């Protein structure tokens, strides 16, 4: 402050103390707030206060942890790597790009039957969907069916924005690199005969994504008409309006596409591929036995040391199999309980000193 001079001084700078009436007005208000006397609760973190809390935390956390742990353990999960790195693997042949289309089959056995709805995931490793250049390489307006954005996609989509002078729909790196292996599951019934397991395509994407966030371009005509003047992403075999035969699952609202477009947080991730619905209460969805997985192997991951997996998993109310939460709860609960005991001892030992606490000068 260069100048703290206040010309107000001149106006009301009278004699310093005007006694009498003026003095009364200057008296500060005797309110709780101004006198800093608001009613207040003043907790103190002493052993006595914290002790019960620790016991309570321990007593609550340990059962919760056990519950979660058991729930998690009851979930059946099987993971099959079909990258084909191992030369003995049936998919090894597909690593070289020459064979197209390459189809390989992997046999596996379920030791235990899977009950309830079974969820089929594909998993990729070392695939950086969370790379910044990748994450932003999309145009949400285009995906929401905005006609202008359809023909003039966002610059963020570079270098997957235009191809041969036509706008790419859907543009961007994410869409361009969409997972395109096809997985089919067969149950081997008595030796040679096999039945295909019905895989449900719908319900794998968030409801809001499918119904609100992703929309096909407006128009009455067939999808092909609505996507005219656009071209397919470079890496795609067929254009977006031919992703599925079902009109409700085609174009931008194709659920496989939507699932792929939700970029994963970490370089190793799973995405929901299909749902195997429970048929009846009496039969397990996937009974124990031999199965084989038929893979139409298209997706190259070898160049970046990636891995491809197929995962079958049941689900509980809290999601898939993850022992971490249960263990963490049990650990925290036990530590809390233990500390409670330690504090109890301390509190007992030092009770006198803390209660008659006085200030030593």
């Amino acid at each position: 402050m260069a100048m703290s001079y206040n010309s107000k001084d001149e106006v009301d700078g009278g004699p310093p103390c005007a006694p009498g009436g003026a003095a009364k007005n200057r008296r500060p208000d005797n309110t709780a707030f101004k006198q800093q006397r608001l009613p207040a609760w003043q907790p103190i973190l002493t052993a006595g206060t914290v002790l019960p809390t620790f016991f309570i935390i321990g007593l609550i956390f340990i059962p919760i942890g056990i519950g979660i742990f058991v729930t998690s353990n009851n979930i059946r999960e099987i993971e099959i790597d079909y990258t084909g790195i191992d030369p003995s693997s049936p998919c090894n042949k597909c690593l070289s790009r020459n064979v197209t289309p390459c189809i390989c089959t992997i046999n596996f056995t379920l030791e235990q039957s899977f009950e309830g709805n079974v969820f089929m995931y594909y998993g990729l490793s070392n695939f950086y969907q969370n790379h910044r250049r990748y994450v932003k390489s999309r145009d949400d307006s285009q995906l929401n069916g905005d006609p202008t954005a359809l023909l003039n996609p966002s610059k963020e989509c570079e270098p997957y924005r235009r191809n041969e002078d036509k706008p790419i729909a859907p543009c961007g790196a994410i869409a361009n690199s969409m997972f395109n292996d096809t997985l089919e599951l067969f149950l081997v019934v008595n030796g040679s005969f096999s039945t295909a397991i019905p895989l449900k395509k719908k319900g794998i994407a968030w409801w809001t994504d499918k119904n609100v966030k992703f929309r096909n371009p407006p128009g009455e005509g067939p999808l092909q008409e609505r996507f005219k003047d656009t071209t397919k992403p470079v890496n795609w075999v067929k254009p977006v309006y031919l992703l599925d035969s079902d009109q409700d699952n085609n174009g931008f609202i194709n659920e496989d596409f939507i699932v792929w477009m939700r970029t994963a947080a970490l370089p190793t991730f799973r995405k929901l591929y299909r749902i195997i619905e429970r048929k009846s209460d009496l039969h397990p969805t996937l009974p124990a036995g031999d199965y084989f997985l038929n893979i139409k192997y298209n997706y190259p991951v070898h160049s970046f040391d990636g891995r491809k997996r197929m995962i079958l998993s049941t689900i509980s109310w809290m999601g898939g199999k993850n022992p971490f939460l249960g263990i963490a709860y049990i650990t925290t609960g036990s530590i809390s309980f233990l500390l409670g005991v330690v504090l109890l001892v301390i509190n007992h030992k030092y009770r006198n000193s803390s209660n008659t606490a006085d200030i030593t000068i």
Partner: protein
Amino acid sequence: MWRWVRQQLGFDPPHQSDTRTIYIANRFPLNGLYTPQKFIDNRIISSKYTVWNFVPKNLFEQFRRVANFYFLIIFLVQLMIDTPTSPITSGLPLFFVITVTAIKQGYEDWLRHNSDNEVNGAPVYVVRSGGLVKTRSKNIRVGDIVRIAKDEIFPADLVLLSSDRPDGSCHITTASLDGETNLKTHVAVPETTVLRTVANLDTLVAVIECQQPEADLYRFMGRMIITQQMEEIVRPLGPESLLLRGARLKNTKEIFGVAVYTGMETKMALNYKSKSQKRSTVEKSMNTFLIIYLIILISEAIISTILKYTWQTEEKWDEPWYNQKTEHQRNSSKILRFISDFLAFLVLYNFIIPISLYVTVEMQKFLGSFFIGWDLDLYHEESGQKAQVNTSDLNEELGQVEYVFTDKTGTLTENEMQFRECSINGIKYQEINGRLVSEGPTPDSSDGNLSYLSSFSHLNNLPHLTSSSSFGTSPENETQLIKEHDLFFKAVSLCHTVQISNVQTDGIGDGPWQASLAPSQLEYYASSPDEKALVEAAARIGVVFIGSYEETMEVKILGKLEQYKLLHILEFDSDRRRMSVIVQAPSGEKFLFAKGAESSILPTCIGGEIEKTRIHVDEFALKGLRTLCMAYRQLTSKEYEVINRRLFEARTALQQREEKLANAFQFIEKDLILLGATAVEDRLQDKVRETIEALRMAGIKVWVLTGDKHETAVSVSLSCGHFHRTMNILELINQKSDNECAEQLRQLARRITEDHVIQHGLVVDGTSLSLALREHEKLFMDVCRNCSAVLCCRMAPLQKAKVIRLIKISPEKPITLAVGDGANDVSMIQEAHVGIGIMGKEGRQAARNSDYAIARFKFLSKLLFVHGHFYYIRIATLVQYFFYKNVCFITPQFLYQFYCLFSQQTLYDSVYLTLYNICFTSLPILIYSLLEQHINPHVLQNKPTLYRDISKNRQLSMTNFLYWTILGFSHAFIFFFGSYFLMGKDTSLLGNGQMFGNWTFGSLVFTVMLITVTVKMALETHFWTWINHFVTWGSIIFYFVFSLFYGGILWPFSDSQNMYFVFFQLLSSGSVWFAIILMVVMCLFLDIVKKVFDRHFHPTNTEKAQLTETNSSIKCLDSMCCFSEGETACASVGRMLERVIGRCSPTHVSRLWSASDPFYTNDRSILTLSTMDSSTC
């Protein structure tokens, strides 16, 4: 042109010559032999901005702050390069911060504009072209003749031309300038006093030459050259003819004056410029912390950049098939890419520097300082004064004080002088009930009282007391006695500058003297309370000063009126330490009466009972009384001629006037005959002893710095508890030479080391001090540091400041506080880290120049121990917490880079990045920092030792800072890796098997972080009012509501819809709820355990004191529901919250604090304890 520009910008001082020449009424000489000097107009500009320059100037000023500039740079970087976050993320908070500050400053400036306009637009009457013209104050030009009526304020610095009185005098009060309430007489040059009408004034042709404007209120030198009948008369002008802007005309109907200094060049405006900015220790530590964080930020950015390039060497990571670069990215230069990557990381992590820290700190200080003014305990009922905060920047510094330097008079004492004793002609008298009673070895000591009374009744009959011939009828010795008495009290009632209050003067001036006027009805106004006390005492004894009119002083002696002609006043100054008057008695004899400190009077005396008086003076001083000696000299007319001439010469000198005056005074005040000495008591203020005791218990060293004499100072020190009887008092006084002084110092140092059981008190006087400070600073400081109490007497104002400066720069760099009430304490108040002004009797100057002003010394204890303690704790926690919460905020983002190939992908959405500091976490800490009371204020005040717990900036020590930072980092690790393990190999967390993406992951981390950080604040809070509950839980609820809303719609005009329904999906997962609870509990677990263990194993005094507190009766719910309406709803919410944080089960150890607890126990046990204590520290 260039010069004009420079002048306008203020680079060049606008005037070059040493003097300014002012043509009165702007009548310039007709011949062209003058160069017009340019003067500024009479506009007072206290505002900083105009409408036009507000935006650029304010922005410029704001961006001069390092933090704002830093964020501006970050913002610009974001605009220029391809950065991970949009420029809005840092632009918006910056804009917010800048706007808030700009609004505050703009508002303050608007207020200043208003008051400027009010002042500048005030109507004034100016003599122009032969008539009186009403105009606005701002239109006054230098040279204008201005008319001022009674009780008006002078609009510019005026040289008095004439008043309605024939002698051209007028009375003014300068209360708003220096706070002195007494009336001051100003006189005009004789030639102009006759010009009492506008028409007459129009004939005046005169030129004033005077010095260029300067700030000193009491210095003015110039001369007036009046052209009358073709001859030039030169008259000197001094401060007595200058009427300062801001002063008020009193007792005079109207005056005319010519404006010499206008607008910003008036002495008043010059005096308010440039106050030094003090910065608190907390602010300094804050800046250190900022630098540390800047280093952390840069190193994180460097690490990330290096790791990024290590990864990128392999093409499969740099550019896998699914994630190709554009041509442009591929072709850009390597170095450029490297730099832009580094900058991008900088931008990504820049939030680690808390942008809103400065704004919050400023708001906290500004709002928090209101509590001081509001405090009823700091309100002084009698004078109706509450504490004033002039600088809110130093609130927390009040909690850090290590040295208190206090003035004595008016600070420790009331400055309400009470005449007690006197020594007349070697006999001591005491005043008892308005009568003098002799004491000591007088021949008739048994009935001294009677003898005196009889002598006084005797006096009644005598017509001329001063003429010794009239005493002829009385016995010889008694006559002598009476004569001396009479002279003594005449001297007392004549030798002063006391004024009578104006109402009475008016009444008296009109009519004849009324004999019935009782002395008690007279009200005296004096700049010095001593003078007032003496004149009042004389009036009680029977020598009543009735008033001075023109050049006569009226004194009523036992009902009989005498008129003395006042010939000269030799004003008081602090170098001479005396004043004198030359009067002509009714009999025609001329007397010089002198009054002053005994050290300045006694050496000049040649007659009187010098030795006896000296003994008496020392006795008075031992009792703690303030002494003054009175002496007189009878002047023959020849002597007077010489004196008169010398005085005139000195007073009219243009060069070295002060020196010449001093010489003249020296010449006049000699060969005096001692009349006696007076002793005036200055009562100690209430609770001074307790306050000093408490300060000492708090580990604060108290130094008393006073201008009083040694004995007085020591005895006051003893009575106010500054010195104890048990103390070993060391003295360093009357040192004449360097070597002697050094020797003495060494001896003292040896004495201190030899017997260090006893406490030491040191007494130093001004002259010895200046010797000690000149050569032996180190030695002196060593001695001082070992003394628990130091008393410096006979100190000049600048010396006071110098002592403080010395302590300030000593190796320990202690925080100093200076308390004072008078203008002589201003330099000391400004020098100290914290300056406290006492709003006392000596005017407002100290209060105005101080950082805090209080009415009484005893308020210091509440100010330091309660307010200082609170503010320190509040701001220390505020600063630590701010850094902590930003570490929590940004570290997960840093960790995430390890999982996304250092591609600068943000973990959180930009809206969350933007709002984190502004909305989600700002309020709880602000409210905490305004309301927190970790201990009951009563306890704080009753146990000053608690002050030691926060000394030396303990809360902001490096260890504490490290603890908070590490805590922040470990919390960040828990959020991040907790979420990481929860997602695991990315198993589904939803009951329908669907998957989450990266934004959900970020939201999870953010949610956990937000709750943890808010609950961490809750853990720190010890004083839960309903406001705290409201903002704490409100912040969390607001976050959830906001997130649901933000994710609930597809935002139009937005490029990405990343967050669409992410938060909703997150909350629909049961595991996530469990994980949030788990992580929050885990984060706070360690902290709670540490707190509990600390409290049990090494409890600080503060923590112990918390246990002895009272307010355990108020429960969590009470505090919350006291002010909210829906009792039941609130209770249920409260219970739920209780369960969430799981710590609302207070089993308090309650020991009721009762009001009957002694306020600083006065018993010896504590005294001895404290003495032991202060000797060890």
